[in-house]
């Protein structure tokens, strides 16, 4: 076994900060794309819902507003699954496998790690919105074209990504990986089903109907449905902002880097 010669003399030095963060983002993105389960949640399930909305009898999807109502809701669902569930589960296992502490001792550092994660998540969400948006349009979604509602919609998505990711990190940094996995999936399903993500708050009966607009999932779902319908309601942005600040605060306080 004639190994090539290696110059093992020390030559320490950090790569430039932007390239470190991009490297981290690229690796995380690559691993996520390779992970079948994550891809299923991120794309296949939402695509399936869109297709169903197109082919199902109208009276069945009427409650969801047909394809016109479901398309923006599905976009909200996709953001929810990636930003919250995927972030929580991936980070939980990174902590468990010592990846976090391993990378924290490289020039990437903790802030680079979080930034890299944010960039990777941004790519994922943009890719999802692109694929699902185009698919929805191709299936017959005809959203309103007014700029202000869409501006509010984009702001809501941006806030929601940070918000959900912060809560995902808060979970992953505090609980064991298996518990994080279970809780993240449970919360995902629970709020996807009852959090006014795909169904407007007006569809929920009684007390829950009154409470649900205060949830970040409802705020995102409503913002995107409003954008699609050409309506602006800034109160949803306020709700998202409050949840975002709360999530960041808790994540900062509770996050542990070691298993």
């Amino acid at each position, binding site marked *: 076994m004639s190994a090539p010669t*290696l110059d*093992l003399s020390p030559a*320490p030095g*950090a790569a430039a900060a932007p390239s470190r963060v991009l*490297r981290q983002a690229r690796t995380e993105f690559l691993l996520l794309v390779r992970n079948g389960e994550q891809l299923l949640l991120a794309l296949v399930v939402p695509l399936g819902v869109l297709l169903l909305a197109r082919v199902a009898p109208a009276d069945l999807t009427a409650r969801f507003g047909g394809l016109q109502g479901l398309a923006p809701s599905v976009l909200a669902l996709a953001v929810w699954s990636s930003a919250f569930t995927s972030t929580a589960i991936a980070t939980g296992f990174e902590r468990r496998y010592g990846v976090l502490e391993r990378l*924290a*001792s*490289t*020039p990437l550092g903790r802030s680079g790690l979080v930034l890299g994660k944010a960039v990777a998540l941004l790519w994922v969400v943009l890719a999802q919105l692109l694929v699902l948006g185009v698919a929805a349009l191709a299936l017959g979604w005809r959203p309103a074209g007014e700029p202000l509602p869409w501006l509010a919609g984009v702001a809501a998505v941006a806030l929601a990504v940070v918000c959900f990711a912060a809560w995902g990190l808060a979970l992953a940094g505090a609980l064991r990986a298996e518990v994080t996995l279970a809780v993240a999936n449970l919360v995902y399903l629970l709020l996807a089903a009852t959090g006014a993500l795909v169904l407007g708050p007006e569809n929920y009966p009684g007390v829950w109907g009154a409470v649900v607009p205060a949830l970040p999932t409802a705020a995102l779902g409503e913002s995107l449905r409003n954008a699609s319908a050409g309506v602006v309601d800034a109160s949803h942005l306020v709700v998202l902002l409050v949840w975002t600040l709360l999530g960041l605060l808790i994540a900062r306080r509770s996050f542990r880097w070691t298993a």
Partner: protein
Amino acid sequence: MGVVGPGIAAAAVQDRGGDVSTTAEDAAEVKGEARSRPAGWGVLDYTPAVPSASSPTALEAVDLRLALGGRTVLDGLTLAAERGRTTALLGPNGAGKTTFIRCCTGVLEPDAGTVRIGGQAVGRALAGGRVGVMPQDSGAWSGIRPLEMLRHLAGLHASPLPVDALAERLGLHELARTPYRRLSGGQKQAVNLAGALVGRPELVFLDEPTAGMDPHTRRAVWALLRELRAAGTTVLITTHAMDEAAELADRVHIIDAGRVRVSGTVEELAADGRSLEQVFLDHTTSRIRP
């Protein structure tokens, strides 16, 4: 070896059991003051901030104290690693070896005491890519392939080793398509070792690097570590294998219950005819009651 770190000077070859109480008191005095300041800026920070290359000690830890979950893990641990030399840390399971490394690599913050790497605070040394770490367990994504992991780590540094040549050297090329989770224990160790070296650090922490490796691989790793030393890299290694310490280490620290019990070269420690293992047994306590 003329240059000796200040922490080592006191340790010498004899057992320190006799002066435990005095050192503990001294340490308690500074503890309160060190606590009130951020790590790396404490009163124990007597090492002048000289440029790394001219500092005689690559690593200097002074009076580290750390309790985790109510248990004292580091109890006034003081040790230094000389530049360009290999320092071995021996100690029973739970003695604080891995915790010590975690304090040196920014993972844990000691309750008191300071760590300087080449005269710099830990955070700065890490940010400058001066430190390579081989963790004891895992440290890689379960789905990543060995060369991807190495390229990832290489990409964080300014002038990394060529990944292909390094992988070839450690026999990782045949595993190019295998995700990390499906590697054997020894293969994972090889990936982690390569990951510690790929950034061309000046100080490398290797936490039980050859545990789980077959004798062929173990010897290949020893050869690599000797080359690393010859090239001027400072190595701090923990091990339970006495032969490994004897093979590689310029200096050995035997630690027990979170503090250094005895230090010296292998020759010094075994001067009275005892084996290194006997010295180890004499200076450490068993966690298992017979």
